[in-house]
């Protein structure tokens, strides 16, 4: 069964460094998302991406964050200068259709990348 994959599973970085989290969505999916979960807190939406542009982003997704689909398979989240508070589990998700498709709508999630900022 096709699945969303994410690499690495765990990333440790120093404060101020740039990190790139990588995701390979399901191959025929057109909509892509990033979420994060700080330890002990809710899963929070960061950004959605469709047709090579951001379609929605949350307040968390400030200028330190960027997303890119550099080729036909990868979807990346870059954090330019990491802060201690960026430490979290980051989940990538993808969906074949948009929300307006109704009953067929579903986001498929990857296993997550645990980012630790020291």
């Amino acid at each position, binding site marked *: 069964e096709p699945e969303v994959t994410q690499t690495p599973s765990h990333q440790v970085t120093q404060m101020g460094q740039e990190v790139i989290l990588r995701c390979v969505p399901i191959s025929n999916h057109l909509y892509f998302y990033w979420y994060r979960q700080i330890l002990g807190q809710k899963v929070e939406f960061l950004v959605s991406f469709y047709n090579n542009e951001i379609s*929605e982003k949350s307040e968390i997704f400030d200028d330190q964050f960027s997303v890119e689909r550099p080729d036909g398979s990868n979807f990346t989240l870059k954090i330019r200068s990491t802060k201690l508070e960026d430490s979290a589990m980051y989940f990538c998700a993808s969906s074949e259709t*948009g*929300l307006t498709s109704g009953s067929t*709508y579903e986001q498929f*999630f990857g296993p997550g990348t645990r980012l630790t900022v020291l």
Partner: protein
Amino acid sequence: AQSVTQLDSHVSVSEGTPVLLRCNYSSSYSPSLFWYVQHPNKGLQLLLKYTSAATLVKGINGFEAEFKKSETSFHLTKPSAHMSDAAEYFCVVVYGGSQGNLIFGKGTKLSVKP
């Protein structure tokens, strides 16, 4: 702000007994509601979804949920718990007009005792 509340952070049941995980959402026009499950070191897996069709929704592994608009609830149930049901469960809402911004509850950890 739109939100979803899971009333219990931890539920413990014995194998073979019913499961009830509670969820309430903030009222809004045309919400879609989901339950996701997360087993340790695994991604979030969709259990079931409500998208304005039948109010009683059946999902995988014998789980069901009922959308009750008057109570703004979407509780998850299963008649008989199995050891493999032990996991964390997330109630999730997305509102019409969103571009897929799923709003998560804090999660309920389900423990199943033999």
